[in-house]
């Protein structure tokens, strides 16, 4: 039997936000949503926005590039491409045409280490078309035109390599993650992609794409009861399958610093990565707030690196994956006379202060207010909201979106000092230094 679980549903409001006006103290943020769990195990999340003329609709599978077999890297990404090649009913070039004629836009998908997401924006009166199309391709996909798609992926890789630091991305990931599957390149290694077969893609699909491993998200203009009925009717026809078990090893525990020295056609720059905490870990919240202390025009990196004339830009970020995470500091020199090592030394000074002294209460309050307001801003656009919900559902818990303000508020100055001391140790970090090449290659005179 299908269960319909309702969460906080005040009539007449698309969203309920229990924020004390202007003060941002009670950071209870509730999406007015309905969560369905279908008999076959699939989860469907409905968030209505009556003012919209469209529905942002998508689904996510909790499997991504980290789930690619070690000798078949890029398989999740290849499968993402192949799922647009039709079904037993729909021809190879029909998927986009059918959506296009219906006025659908933003037809797209992405592959990440933990998840693969597929989405589109459909006119509000065409919601049933989305259910038809998506349940059809989950039910009976046919992988046609593999050879052309392998060439497309080779071009996608070439596109990455045509960016100034793109050619080094896979090497940096491999250095940082060591043998962990999070270090596998999302596109895969070219030789693996070129040798993959339609049977490999189909096997990967059958392993991971069962309804117990899928969450669909709708944000937009629709009647919830009708949408729930459509979900049961269309997605309900997928044969039940439990969520498979992900076999990811623990995060790597490096014992020595690793350095990558690259020569690039780009302004000299530096990236420092520290292994930290995974998604939903309380320390990931503290690291998010710590990044807030460092970032922005009022942040510590601005004064120490940018205003001081050393860096043209500098930023910090906590990246949280389902089973592991890292904190990255990135900065680019303001002028050729500054070396990446000077940026590194200044970062060490900024970091030392974070480790020695608690962040003052006024500064922490300012950062937390700003981060909570940003969390609210991210709910504004229905399409972006849908993509965020897919991402968090793919990492294991979409409710993180509404929990985030409370989590941010729960972080104390002592937490910040503790995580700075715990995670930011030189002996476990990976440092990438990019130095500008003396002269661009191929700069021929006319």
């Amino acid at each position, binding site marked *: 039997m299908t269960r319909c679980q309702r969460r906080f549903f005040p009539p007449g409001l698309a969203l309920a936000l229990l924020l004390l006006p202007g003060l941002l103290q009670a950071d209870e943020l509730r999406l007015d949503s309905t969560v369905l769990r279908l008999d076959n195990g699939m989860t469907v999340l409905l968030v209505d926005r009556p003012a919209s*003329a469209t529905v942002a609709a998508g689904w996510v599978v909790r499997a991504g590039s980290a789930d690619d077999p070690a000798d078949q890297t890029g398989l999740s990404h290849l499968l993402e491409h192949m799922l647009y090649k039709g079904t037993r009913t729909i021809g190879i070039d029909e998927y986009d045409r059918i959506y296009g004629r219906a006025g659908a836009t933003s037809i797209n998908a992405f592959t990440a280490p933990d998840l693969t997401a597929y989405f589109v924006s459909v006119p509000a009166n065409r919601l049933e078309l989305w259910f038809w199309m998506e349940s059809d391709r989950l039910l009976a996909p046919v992988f046609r035109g593999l050879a052309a798609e392998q060439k497309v992926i080779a071009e996608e890789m070439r596109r990455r390599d*045509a960016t100034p630091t793109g050619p080094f991305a896979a090497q940096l990931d491999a250095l940082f993650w060591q043998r962990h599957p999070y270090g596998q390149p999302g596109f895969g290694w070219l030789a693996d992609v070129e040798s993959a077969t339609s049977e490999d893609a189909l096997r990967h699909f059958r392993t991971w794409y069962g309804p117990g491993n899928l969450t669909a998200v709708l944000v937009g203009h629709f009647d919830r009861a009708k949408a729930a009925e459509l979900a049961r009717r269309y997605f309900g026809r997928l044969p039940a399958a439990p969520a498979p078990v992900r076999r990811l090893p623990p995060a790597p525990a490096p014992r020595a610093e690793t350095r990558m020295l690259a020569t690039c056609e780009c*302004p000299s720059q530096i990236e420092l990565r520290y292994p930290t905490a995974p998604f939903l870990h309380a320390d990931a919240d503290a690291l998010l707030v710590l990044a807030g202390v460092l970032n922005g025009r*009022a942040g510590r990196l601005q004064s120490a690196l940018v205003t001081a004339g050393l860096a043209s830009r500098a930023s910090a970020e906590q990246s949280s994956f389902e089973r592991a995470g890292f904190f990255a500091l990135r900065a680019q020199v303001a002028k050729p006379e500054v070396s990446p090592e000077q940026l590194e030394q200044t970062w060490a000074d900024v970091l030392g202060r974070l480790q020695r002294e608690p962040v003052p209460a006024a500064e922490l309050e*300012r950062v937390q207010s700003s981060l909570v307001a940003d969390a609210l801003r991210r709910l504004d656009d229905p399409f972006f909201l849908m993509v965020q919900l897919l991402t968090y559902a793919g990492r294991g818990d979409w409710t993180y979106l509404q929990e985030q303000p409370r989590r941010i508020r729960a972080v104390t100055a002592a937490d910040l000092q503790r995580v700075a001391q715990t995670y930011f140790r030189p002996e476990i970090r990976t440092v990438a230094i990019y130095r500008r090449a003396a002269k661009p290659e191929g700069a021929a005179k006319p």
Partner: protein
Amino acid sequence: MKLRSVLTLALLLAVCPLSAQLPSREISARPEQIRFEPLEIELKDPARLRHRLSGGVPVYVVEDHTLPLVDVTVLLRAGAVLDTPGKDGLAALTASLVRRGGTAPRRPAEVDEKAESLAVRIETASRNEHVTVSLNCLSGRLDEGLDLLFEMLRQPAFDPETIELEKRRMIATMTGRNDDGNRILDREWTWLLYGRDHAVGRYTTAPGIASITREDLAGFHTRFWKPANMILAVSGDVDPKTIMKRLEARLAGWEKGKAAPWPPAPPSHRPTPGLYYVDRSLPQAQVAIGRLGLTREDRDRHAAALANQILGGGGAFTTRLMQRLRTEEGLVYGVTSELDVGPLWPEPFQIRFAADPAKVPQAIAIARAELRRLCAEPPTAAELETAQSQLLAQIADTFGSARKTALAFALGETLGRPHSDWRNDRAGILNAGAAGVQAAACRALSDDTMLVLVVGSWEKVAAAEGAKELPEPAQQLPLRDPLTLAKP
């Protein structure tokens, strides 16, 4: 009277008959068999959203109480077209310094700390025709947010240290101009289409930026950052009466000023069709094929927009270029064609893609063959219907939220685009037939009027299969010094 319009999706009624029945409980064998309810969408009436402050400043207000947030955007006719000769970047640097350079009562760092403590976002952006300053704040902090916004607008301090910092930042950004093939292509393409004399083609240089003084910035601000050049867009959790009262208070006593010269003169450069290239070793060559497009006065603009949409509009997978170059041949990851209608001068018509240099001649040949096919034969009914749906969806998206609606109307008025254009566009898109689309393609997108620009390893391109079919002669453009844009 409130204007109600059966917009966009309901207009699909005209191109594919819909039933008023509710969805059936059966699952159709094919998706085309699903019957859909018609959808009515209200098109906001700009006249009802437009208010005026006592000094005459227009303000578009669109309410949306879904979230406790308010957006206030100030649009000013103070863009790069007003740059002083030799000081290109003056308008952009002024806008940047209004945000970053402190205010009379506050040092730059104090402004940023104040903004963060209020959890407000204030950002500036500059374009050729105008600049914008936008505030986003919690509705409970609107008064304090407006106070800070208007403190920046009315009393910028142009802090000397921050001016130097900003100038260094702009110059640091310039150093990367030749690092990315796309940036080289953008620059050379703009020059090929518009020349270097008009604001559209005037790029900043390190000497030009260095020559800008604090007096230049303050003078530009005093002259052009005035209510006479200003239009506002407000949206979100606020009602018109409240916001107008609050804005009235913030603008009180601000000298109206003199309106900037308007409209700016259009570029006079005439592009020369042919093949051009910049020799630069890159894993992927960047390619543009195109010409100057149309202005809003052009009668063929809707039919031409449909032709472009069928060709490669928005990089949609339904388009001919995506089908041929990606799905069938696997030569590119993406390909787009654009035909934006310029309110003041023609925007470019352009096909853009990146490809392996050894595949570039083949990809260019396919793209040009598709251009010729647009003129040689009318589109199919299905192609036309799809293109109409996509363009109508774009219009609907322009008004897809309160913020977008307020900005679309305010920007339209800033650039001198009549609001009636939106309705005319819808009608024009729906009324264009296949023969009209074909005729417009022959006139506006003719292959023999195109310029082709390649940025990539020319040795590999010239040695590739199909290179002999490229237009001749191929004219080399220099890879310029990133700071001065002078020839090497």
